[in-house]
């Protein structure tokens, strides 16, 4: 049993790492809530929301989900497919702009 513990401890990361990440996540969450509480608007609001969101997501994935310590074979297989989402966002944002244009044109401007 003691042998087992000694062998396994090599693989684990110190308690301090988790507590630090935990604290950081709390601070970042408080920051993103503050964005709403103080009612920042416009570009400042959106960039702050995105910054805190990606910071939190990155910390969770890197340390809580251990990706920071995984081999690149796994990390790259997991992360590259996510870039497809970015392409999809651009496609659908163009689609939404087109839809709202047709709605405004035919329902409002086109009625006259």
């Amino acid at each position, binding site marked *: 049993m003691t042998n087992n513990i000694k062998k396994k401890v090599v693989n*684990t990361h110190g308690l301090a790492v988790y507590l630090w990440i935990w604290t950081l996540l709390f601070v970042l969450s408080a920051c993103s809530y503050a964005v709403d509480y103080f009612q920042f608007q416009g570009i400042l609001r959106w960039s702050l929301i995105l910054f805190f969101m990606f910071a939190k997501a990155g910390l969770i994935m890197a340390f809580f989900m251990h990706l920071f310590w995984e081999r690149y074979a796994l990390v790259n297989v997991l992360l590259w497919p996510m870039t497809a989402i970015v392409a999809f966002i651009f496609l659908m944002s163009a689609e939404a702009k087109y839809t709202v244009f047709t709605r405004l044109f035919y329902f409002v401007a086109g009625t006259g």
Partner: protein
Amino acid sequence: MNNNISDLPKKFKGLKHDFSSDQVTFKGVNWGKAMMWIFLVSDTFIFSCFLIAYMTVRGSTPIPWPNPSEVFALTIFGVHVPLLLIAIMTFVLITSSGTMALAVKFGYERNRKLCALFILLTAIGGIAFVGMQVFEWTKLIFHEGVRPWANPMGANQFGAIFFMVTGFHGTHVSIGVIFLLIYARKTWRGDFDTGKKGFFTSMRSDYLAIEILGLYWHFVDLVWVFIFAFFYLW
């Protein structure tokens, strides 16, 4: 295999080495863990589709979108606080993610009691989260008359997106809580020390199962980060 993994090349050289080697690509990664990761990638795409649908729907309606800051505000002791319940839910979920990370750590160290205790704490956090979500839904459905097809605050699509996205996430949390409770019991009973066979899979398990469970739970927290940013704050 685990003994010589530290001798293998690292970073991108390691990537090339692992993919051009025979047999096992993901060196030192248990098959269950690899399968959980693949499931999580597919689940990421499902949640992305929901959030992209939300973006499309919100961007394509000429009618103003309800202000989430006001919709989800609470009045506590006569003080009007915007988005309070959602902020508390966020902190509860992050706390439970932290306890899960510690449970995984204690699992690695084969510390049976602390591992079980922290899984149980995580489950309690999850139950609290789902409880607050039930409160939120009740408030919106019965007191404010929000329906998937209409609501008194603005664009009709708001209800449909809200119930779909938070409902799907809440389902994930609920399933997670069920598994957390099952695994808290298994850990406490010492199944991973004695090598007792699971009643459903009839396979021997290990503390590695806690890491796999942890991946799922952190993912649920991860999805909430995106829902919180895009649905509640945007």
